[in-house]
């Protein structure tokens, strides 16, 4: 990377669309991870700091499944079948890890208050990160080219890879499913009610423990799949990747309005696109700085986030 260059005029229009597709791809990772932060926060009023590291765990589990035993999964199911099956296993295992995190790190400290929960969450994040390092080592791992689909083509004149299109398709499908569950189903109404007032939700016959189980399984499950897709997309993964992605996704959560499901999706996509355009037109070295300026600006000028305005408190 050379020194920062502002306003590089040499870029072509097609670059804009390329950056847009790149941005949406990264943004969909942020969005999927942000959904997990937001759902857990909505119901528990707790920021699950271990969430970014569960994302990393997803990437590593996916790596081991796809490369382990000399690629048995892809050998027997084909490349796409293997990736799909791996994604399913990753989702289930990381969901299980998420539920265990709640049982081990949070449930015992609920009575001791917010601060203890934050400390416990940070402890869990460090624990998972170190567990990943202990198991897979501290040097980055790379997904071998043989397990990554490499087809490229042009979509409406924009050069894209098949992997990008697949990632976008799967991410949007997952987001649509989550949105339908939360906004349109009976159980989703129970989740929203529990987020607003647990005691009253209980009186109406809602088993809040089921709701808690649901958010701690679904959020990390989605995060794990995002981790796997991220690994396939960039090929390289590192044990501390959860920190950076966790922070970005958390920014996206705040941007969209914490606790707000469509907000988390929108925040993630906007962040990905803004970041990618900044990297393309301004400078890659500065993009993180802009992201955090954005976070601070949102916190100052619109602390409820873009979609977090739906409050009608009246006593």
């Amino acid at each position, binding site marked *: 990377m050379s020194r920062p260059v502002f306003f590089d005029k040499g870029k072509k229009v097609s670059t804009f669309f390329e950056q847009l597709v790149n941005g949406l791809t990264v943004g969909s990772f942020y969005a999927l991870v942000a959904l997990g932060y937001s759902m857990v926060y909505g119901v528990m009023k707790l920021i699950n700091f271990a969430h970014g590291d569960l994302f990393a765990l997803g990437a590593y589990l996916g790596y081991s499944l796809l490369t382990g035993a000399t690629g048995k999964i892809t050998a027997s199911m084909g490349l796409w079948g293997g990736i799909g099956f791996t994604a399913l296993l990753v989702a289930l295992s990381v969901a299980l890890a998420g539920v265990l995190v709640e049982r081990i790190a949070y449930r015992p400290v609920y009575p001791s208050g917010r601060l203890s929960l934050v400390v416990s969450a940070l402890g869990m994040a460090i624990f998972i990160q170190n567990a990943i390092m202990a198991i897979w080592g501290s040097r980055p791992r790379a997904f071998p080219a043989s397990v990554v689909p490499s087809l490229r083509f042009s979509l409406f004149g924009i050069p894209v890879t098949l992997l990008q299109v697949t990632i976008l398709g799967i991410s949007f499908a997952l987001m649509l499913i989550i949105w339908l569950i939360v906004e349109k189903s*009976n159980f989703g*109404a*129970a989740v*929203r*009610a529990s987020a*607003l*007032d647990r*005691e*009253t*939700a*209980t*009186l*109406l*016959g*809602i*088993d*809040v423990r089921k709701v808690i189980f649901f958010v701690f399984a679904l959020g990390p499950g989605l995060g794990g799949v995002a981790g796997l897709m991220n690994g396939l997309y960039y090929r390289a993964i590192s044990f501390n990747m959860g920190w950076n992605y966790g922070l970005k996704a958390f920014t996206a959560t705040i941007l969209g309005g914490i606790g707000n499901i469509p907000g988390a999706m929108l925040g993630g996509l906007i962040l990905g696109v803004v970041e990618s355009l900044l990297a393309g037109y301004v400078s890659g070295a500065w993009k993180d700085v802009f992201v955090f300026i954005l976070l601070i600006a949102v916190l100052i000028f619109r602390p409820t986030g873009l979609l977090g305005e*739906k*409050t*009608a*408190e*009246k006593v």
Partner: protein
Amino acid sequence: MAPLLEIKDLCLDYGAVRALNSVSLKVEENEIVTVLGANGAGKTSLLKAISGLIRPSKGSIQFRGEDLSRIQAFSLAGRGIAHVPEGRRVFSTLSVQENLTLGRYGVRALRKKADLDNLEERVYALFPILKERRSQLAGTLSGGEQQMLAIGRALVSSPSLLLLDEPSLGLAPIIVQEIFSLIKKIHKEEKIAILLVEQNARKALKAASRAYILELGKIVVSGDSADLAQDPRVQAAYLGAKAC
């Protein structure tokens, strides 16, 4: 026949604070019973104990002959107990309709949908203002309307016992009047038992057939409402000349 609800020697503690001390009471099928008491007497604690939100330290609570001490709070809605909590607690960022729909959550798998839809229509008929505002956010309703919504949300689960925690709290006298008329109407039309805890003794004694008076966690007087209204001790403490 055993009473619908029977509480025996109930004690409830918050750490070192004893909120209920050997409370016994019963509610018969299709009866309005009131528990009167000043602020801090233990009324809310009593209702929360019945709903399983707080576990008592001693004593028993039986509903239709079933001991509730080991039953999860969330499954009481399905057994026919509906609790309208103190301060209404409507879901302020959800619409009136969404609040009512949540009210049937605990019984949605136990009752026929058509019956529940029917019941919802009857609830809307009881509270026509809610029907007008069905798509409005609950937080934008007035206090009286929120109380109606909280009661409606409990009723749509077709309970056999309705627990009401100070429904008149913080409402203007004319609205209080309306709420009490509605409680009587609900009792008459829906044929359900109501356990009403109140500080507004005058109105509650008029609505209920029997009453208990709770002081510092203990039942000090109980009997028919009409008798209690004439009792000099009750008159002095709860129906003072200047009381509302």
